[in-house]
């Protein structure tokens, strides 16, 4: 099992979101409570953002 290093709060519902020791900036994780996708903005200090929705790029 992956070791949990830190558990920053979900910006949407305040639940603790466990991040593994190998967490990296820009990775997408899922909140265990509200299930929203979150982006790791910073590891030290730990900070999460709501992940951007998938958008159409029209092949550009």
């Amino acid at each position: 099992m992956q070791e949990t290093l830190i558990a920053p709060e979900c910006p949407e519902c305040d639940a603790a979101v466990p991040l593994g020791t190998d967490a990296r900036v820009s990775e997408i994780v899922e909140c265990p409570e509200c299930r929203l996708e979150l982006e790791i903005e910073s590891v030290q200090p730990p900070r999460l953002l709501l992940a951007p929705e998938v958008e159409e790029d029209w092949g550009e």
Partner: protein
Amino acid sequence: MIRAAVLGAAGYIGGELLRLLINHPQVDVVAATSRTLQGRQIDGVHPNLRHRTKLTFSSEERLPRCEVLFLATPHRETMRRMPEFLTKSGVVIDLSGDFRLHDTEVYEEYYGTPHEAPDLIPTFTQGLPEHHRAALRTADRISVPGCMATAGILSLSPLAAAGLITGDVTVDARTGSSGSGAKAGAENLHAERSGALRVFAPTKHRHEAEIAQATGHTVRMSATGVEAVRGVQLLSRATLADGVDERAIRSAYRTRYADEPFVRIVAARRGLHRFPDAKILSGSNFCDIGFALDRGASTVTVIAALDNLVKGGAGNAVQCMNVRFGEPEERGLEFTGLHPN
């Protein structure tokens, strides 16, 4: 081993009690009674128990002494005979409606008959470990709430206790056919039941009184029979107190139920199973609770679901027994439900 007996074991709740108790590693089921099926094999009525027990139905008169007696007997008869039942066992766990309501006038209003053992009512502890765990550890008389009441109390009481809702609460309940019991009636004919959405209690369902008693709010409850065999789902609506937002609601639930083994908060923003659905809870002892605020954030809709025969009855009773006898609370209740089913 805990010596247990079930009175009224031929019904659906009785069968569910037997299923859970026979598979419980610390319980020895010493008797299962039925008035009409004495001497018959239990698995003739409860075929899921084939090869799991050699018990036969026995008469109430030949009930051996036991440590815990589960009553799956009808209301009215239960209160009438409770003094006799209390002599049969050290601990009595009653699943009838007779000792749930504290106020005899309210009982008469909802059950249409005066209470016949009012002196015994205060001697019972409500069989809901999430609310009365400390009292249940020493309780010898336990009254298990109704199925829809359990869902209503577990889902609404954290908001009521924290002062997050105000005014009357409207409860819309849906229930599967097993809630009507194992006796045949015109309402349970396949031709009548199949495909029906039968509003059998547009107002004043009995369980509304239990929810009101537990929350302190006036409750207006309707109940509809739906296509399912098992399962209860409640949608409750209440006005939010001033300044209450989604974070406060979620925090109240998280705080209240963080350590509860059988209550889960299910209010996801993504995915197929965002809110509680009784379908995935069949056979399990979970009560799932979710919520959503309206756009103006002035009211909250609370969704609760459980298996009416398990967390809404037999499973909750076994959980109470575990608490009373110092067993791990989840023992014998570990089943997670099925998906898909």
